[in-house]
């Protein structure tokens, strides 16, 4: 019910409607809940409505934050390596 999927807006239509593409599958949804949306934006689609824009910058930042943990793994590997 609260599950939603990120999809790319491919066309804007009248009456607050838009077409989104999901890996090539096209779907007509409502963008009535968004203030601003442009072709090329990624939106979170839920029960036929775009709930929110997806921020590419924040997505990249989160992934980078997750990857930061990698430094520690390398350190641990080094310690393990030195013990062996």
């Amino acid at each position: 019910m609260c599950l939603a999927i990120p999809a790319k807006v491919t066309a804007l239509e009248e009456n607050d409607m838009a077409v989104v593409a999901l890996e090539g599958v096209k779907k007509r949804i409502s963008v009535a809940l968004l203030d601003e949306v442009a072709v090329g934006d990624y939106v979170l689609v839920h029960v036929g409505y775009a709930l929110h824009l997806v921020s590419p910058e924040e997505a990249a930042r989160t992934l980078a934050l997750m990857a930061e943990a990698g430094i520690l793994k390398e350190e641990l590997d080094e310690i393990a390596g030195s013990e062996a």
Partner: protein
Amino acid sequence: MKYVDEFRDGELAGTLATKIRSEALPDRTYHLMEFCGGHTHAIFRYGVQDLMPDNVKFVHGPGCPVCVLPVRRLDDAVELAERHGVILCSYGDMMRVPGTKQRSLIRAKADGADIRMVYSTIDALKIARDNADRQVVFFAIGFETTTPPSAVAIRQAKAEGLTNFSVFCNHVLTPSAIGHILESPEVRELGTVKIDGFLGPSHVSSVIGSEPYEFFAEEFAKPVVIAGFEPLDVMQSALMLIRQINEGRAEVENEYTRVVTREGNLKAQKLVSEVFELRQSFEWRGLGEVPYSALRIRDAYADFDAEKRFDISEKQSREVKSCECPAILRGVKKPTDCKLFGTVCTPDNPMGSCMVSSEGACAAYWTYGRFREPRKTAREKAGKEVAA
């Protein structure tokens, strides 16, 4: 798929698991409640629990809208279709949930009631336009994610002058439910579970923002991390919670920044508050009556309120007696503690809502964990005996 695949990356999951193992203190346990059923499914589907050290445990919360709807409201919907002869439009999740005497919407449909499964309120409006001589009722359920679409539909119906369309409103609010889990005396009597921190809702928060949880984190001194629904989001959020717990902090942090902001979707909030207002109280399955935890349609839109348009009778609704859904929803019991689980109650023949919904804990255990859990329990038992 962009924004999905990269948050399911196995290698990155390994790195996060290492980090979590190194930061979780071995001399304590971490009970993290994931409020949303979407998180429960991510945890099971991707084996996130198996990547956690034994002292980091996920407690499954009540965030499954289909599961928390009390049986009486479902019986009311069946009545609308059968006695009042309306076309009842429902989201698919709701169709197979058993009501009193195991009557579900799909059984009522088989018996001749006009019940249509819709994907969106947009479809329900179209059905109303196409059937001008029939009354069409949209069975609105869900948390803050499905509420704005219902608000848009009601406004649209008013703008078009659709006199045969109304909404049976069962929308509920997430923050009040989280608060209730921690403070309600009834829940305390029924048994509560230790919770050290919360994984906050993903998409609900995209609408309401992270701000509504701030009061709650402060008042109950429990950390909250708003978490995305992908497995790496869950792991990163668990790590953020472990850090807060270790440092003695109880703050609202946001892991899901690609979609959630502090203020949320203001346009959606405005639409919702224009059409809906707070109910003084609403019954939740598993939590009982929760004050100010649900919405009803405002008087300005009373013409579109199915509860005002139709005379819905008082009824004695009953769930299947031995179904443990209520305790499972509070996190007090696990699906495998229920004697119906996996025998009498399966997704093909569900006895309770938690087995039906794609967000229900029983459905998650059945689909992804039913063979693993008994083995794990046996292993833990054996380990204890060896230690003794």
